[in-house]
């Protein structure tokens, strides 16, 4: 995996409402940030699964910034091929997020690419419809 810093990519992202215990208004859905780093912690839980990713600081590469990545519930991640052990601390990952508007190192999940090239997404919360299968 290429050793690059995180970068901000402007994009129009029309994402289905994520299952969240909080308002998603904090996130800027028009922006994407690509994080290339190392998994610090991965918590498979309700109401949200979350990942902490250590990423080299953009200005001082000797420092690491811990990004918090918020995902949906395992109920929906399972349907998108996730498992509780799909990543572990120390794994190299590339994660794309919609960042919080404040500029802090936090974002809501868009996609993740594993070291073996597999790409993982979420599944929309659409229970009772063919979309959720």
């Amino acid at each position, binding site marked *: 995996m290429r050793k690059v810093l995180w970068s901000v990519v402007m994009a129009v992202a029309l994402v*289905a*409402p*994520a*299952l*969240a*215990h*909080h*308002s*998603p*208004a*904090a*996130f*800027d859905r028009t922006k994407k940030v690509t994080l290339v780093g190392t998994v610090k*912690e991965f*918590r498979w839980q*309700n*109401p*949200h699964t*979350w990942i*902490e990713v250590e990423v080299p600081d953009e200005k001082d590469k000797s420092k690491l910034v811990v990004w*918090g990545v*918020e995902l949906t*519930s*395992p*109920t929906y991640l399972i349907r998108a091929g996730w498992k509780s052990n799909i990543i572990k601390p120390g794994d190299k990952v590339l994660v794309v997020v919609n960042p*919080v*508007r*404040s500029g*802090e*190192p*936090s*974002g*809501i999940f868009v996609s993740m690419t594993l070291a073996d090239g597999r790409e993982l997404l979420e599944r929309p*919360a*659409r*229970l*009772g*419809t063919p979309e*959720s*299968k």
Partner: protein
Amino acid sequence: MKSPMTIRVAAVAAALSFAAAGCTPAPSQPAPAAATQAEADAIAAGTLSALAPANLNKARPAPPFDVTSNWFIDVSQDPKAWHFYLPPYPKLTAAAQKEYDTSMKYDGEGKVYKDDIGQCWPAGLPLIMTRYWPMAMIQKPTAIYMISGFMNSVRIIYLDGRKHTDPDVIVRTYNGESIGTWQGNELVVDTVGFRGDHHWMDQDGPAIPAGEKLHIVERFRMVNDGKQLEIEFTMTDPDNWEGEWKSTKRFNRVVDVDIQEVSCLPDLNQHIKSTTSKTQVFQ
């Protein structure tokens, strides 16, 4: 209201009819128990537990439908259908309008105003019904038990003929106290007794408070051959808006997912960093 003696005779008659037909009660039902005088009096007074055998076995007309299932808000026609702030909504009072205007000001600045649910306060009725989580409903003759997949919030709709609790002793809650009656092919549910703090009509956008005077009447209907449950909400709260606020939601019957244990644990927001970010405004 039936007398205690009438009820006791009905219970005995029901037991005898089972025996005469060579039937046994359905496994989900407790064995019919002859009501004691105290139980019969409690039924008459509406103070017998909804799960007491004497209450469960009281003779009642068969309900027109059974909501027992998992359900999920239908957003197939409109992704925003889970919101209650969608038009038409009523004219707000000055106090509620101030909250609304403040929330929209911050929304325009990319901030989130008073997201109490994100801080682990209960969503409360009506929003708990339309969160993006499945809801399990279990219908008994005397009550419907609803458990939301969102924080496992419990809501109980009593069907056993009881009246609302005396306002002087009711314990106010975010889901309120719900009393349901079957009317034709509908279940009509009357809910009062709400908490008026940290309670909102919606989330993610306009902030419109829900107060202690909130009164919600829901009309439940089974539609689309039982594949969907429709609930028509009629909501009043004179401290926050004028007249009736109406909204109709549909829920899909879900057969391939069960609810899970979901808690807002003390360390959750330490890692869900958006909830503690500078985007949050609580004053």
